[in-house]
């Protein structure tokens, strides 16, 4: 990075030197995009605060905790359930992929990632048909859960695999030499060291499942409408401040959780995944 710094000038820099103008424009370009990224959220929030007779009000947030409460609760429930199931699936799988010889590893890996690369609408229609006519679980909580787990556990796999690869085997060998069996070694030594990688996986699952609406649109019913799907349904009928309030709440919660994660663990384990 230090190599990128401009060579020291032998003259006193003028305020409008070409180099300065160019640097200023470059930063302005970055800031333009940063404003664009935040703008939809900011305007959604502003719209949600707008009172019918002008001025600002928190009135529309009554709906968020009123008629949208069930949707929000369902979203939280299904997100938490997905995260728990993902952990039980992804941690052993990551361990097997990194530490154990498996015949046809590359083929298995790409099959496991199948759902990740399927467009949402295709996954939606295939699950809608299968749930209705083969599994007989249309419009149920279980159906939602299955779709979310299969779509997100590959994303949880990636940071855990990265963390496991970074973990020197010395710790495991030391614990084993000192007489701990495989299970004890895993739970007392390796699992705590994998903390940041696992948290990154939890964050990814949360961000996606909490805000997923497309697959949900195909497989959810009136009793299994998540908050994100509710936002979509409401945008089809109009652009009320209450809809904006729900959308703003969803984004705000997601953003706060991402922020807390970045402050605690940094973004190292999210490299090369869905988040930057």
């Amino acid at each position, binding site marked *: 990075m230090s190599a990128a710094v401009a060579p020291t000038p032998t003259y006193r820099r003028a305020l409008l030197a070409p180099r300065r103008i160019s*640097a200023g424009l*470059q*930063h302005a*370009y*970055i800031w333009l995009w*940063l404003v*664009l*990224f*935040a*703008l*939809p*959220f*900011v*305007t*959604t929030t502003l*719209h949600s605060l707008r009172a019918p007779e002008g001025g600002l009000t928190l009135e529309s947030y009554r709906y968020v905790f009123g008629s949208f409460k069930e949707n929000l609760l369902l979203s939280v429930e299904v997100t938490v359930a997905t995260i728990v199931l993902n952990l039980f*699936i992804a941690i052993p*799988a990551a361990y*097997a*992929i990194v*530490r*154990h010889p*498996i015949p046809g590893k590359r083929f298995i*890996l790409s099959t496991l990632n*199948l*759902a990740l690369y*399927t*467009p949402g*609408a*295709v*996954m*939606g*229609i*295939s699950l*809608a*048909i299968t749930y209705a*006519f*083969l599994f007989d679980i249309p419009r149920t909580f279980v159906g939602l859960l299955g779709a979310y*787990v299969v779509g997100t556990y590959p994303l949880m796999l*990636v940071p855990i695999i990265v963390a496991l690869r970074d973990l020197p085997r010395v710790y495991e060998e030391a614990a084993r030499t000192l007489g701990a069996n495989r299970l004890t070694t895993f739970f007392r030594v390796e699992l705590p060291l994998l903390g940041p990688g696992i948290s990154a996986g939890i964050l990814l699952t949360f*961000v996606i499942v909490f*805000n997923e*609406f*497309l697959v949900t649109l*195909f497989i959810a019913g009136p009793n299994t409408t998540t908050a*994100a799907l509710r*936002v979509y349904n409401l*945008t*089809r009928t109009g652009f009320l401040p209450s*809809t*904006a309030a729900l*959308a703003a709440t*969803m*984004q705000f919660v997601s953003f706060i959780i*991402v922020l807390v994660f*970045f402050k605690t663990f940094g*973004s190292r384990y999210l490299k*090369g995944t869905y*988040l*930057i």
Partner: protein
Amino acid sequence: MAHPTVTLSTREAVAPSRASLWKRWKGALIGPGLILPAAIVTILFSVIPLIYLVIVSFTEESSFFFNNPVYTTANYSTVFDRYLPHIQTTIRLALLASLVNLVFGYPFAYILVRRVRYRELVRTLMVFPLFGPLYLAFGIRYVLLPNGPLAPVLDFLGINATTLLISEPMTVFGMAMFTFPFMVMNVGTALSNVDPLLEEAAQTLGAKPWQIFTRVLFPLSRSGILAGFLMCFGWNLGVFVVPILLGGTAQQRVLSITLHQKGLSQFDYGLASAMGIVLMALAFGVTWLSLRFSRGALGA
């Protein structure tokens, strides 16, 4: 079990070798055993539904679910005949959005890697598009509504917001904004592996800025560009909500929206499945290419 005495005696004799055999088998079985839950979930909720989708796509309308399903390839000829414009629209919109990403994302990634010290802030704010295209399209719509917060600014500039709202450029912009971080991520990774000294050397040797780009930066970051472009293209092929909220009927003729209408409103499961298979084939092809050009998330 029928002759306990015999089994006992043989077991005593064979015990050590059997134990070592078990140990060897256990070593080989642990790996597949640990991966088993993942495999079961994938087979149940991804492999079986996709196979089912392929079968349904070869049946007439919803006849697969009656006693005597009618098998036919008519769905595919309908898709490639009557719905060819939809396939073209899907590909055109995705291509345009990915191009916008490349044109605007490359400079962004370059400046980010070479000049910017507040990278954590950029990373944090770049999270907003990743919450999904729904909120994004929804928010853009609020920006451009006649009484929206930007209305005075747009009025001042003489821009008619409503004509802007339901148009192809707006749809492409909305799609591009969702995939912008993917482009920046891929190009940024490639660029951060390029030594800045190479640029300085080229400059010292008299290269003009555009020559530095075409002769040094572009060739060295080509893999990142390809991977980023294909990743954005793949995501944008499955676009659904952006044309609904920001586009007109012309932009809403994409495969995702059409298959939703055919499948869930008109119950023409055969046709919807065939559209799904075509869309999936497109997306998998693109993903396969992009995985070949990038190192892959798992470094495999």
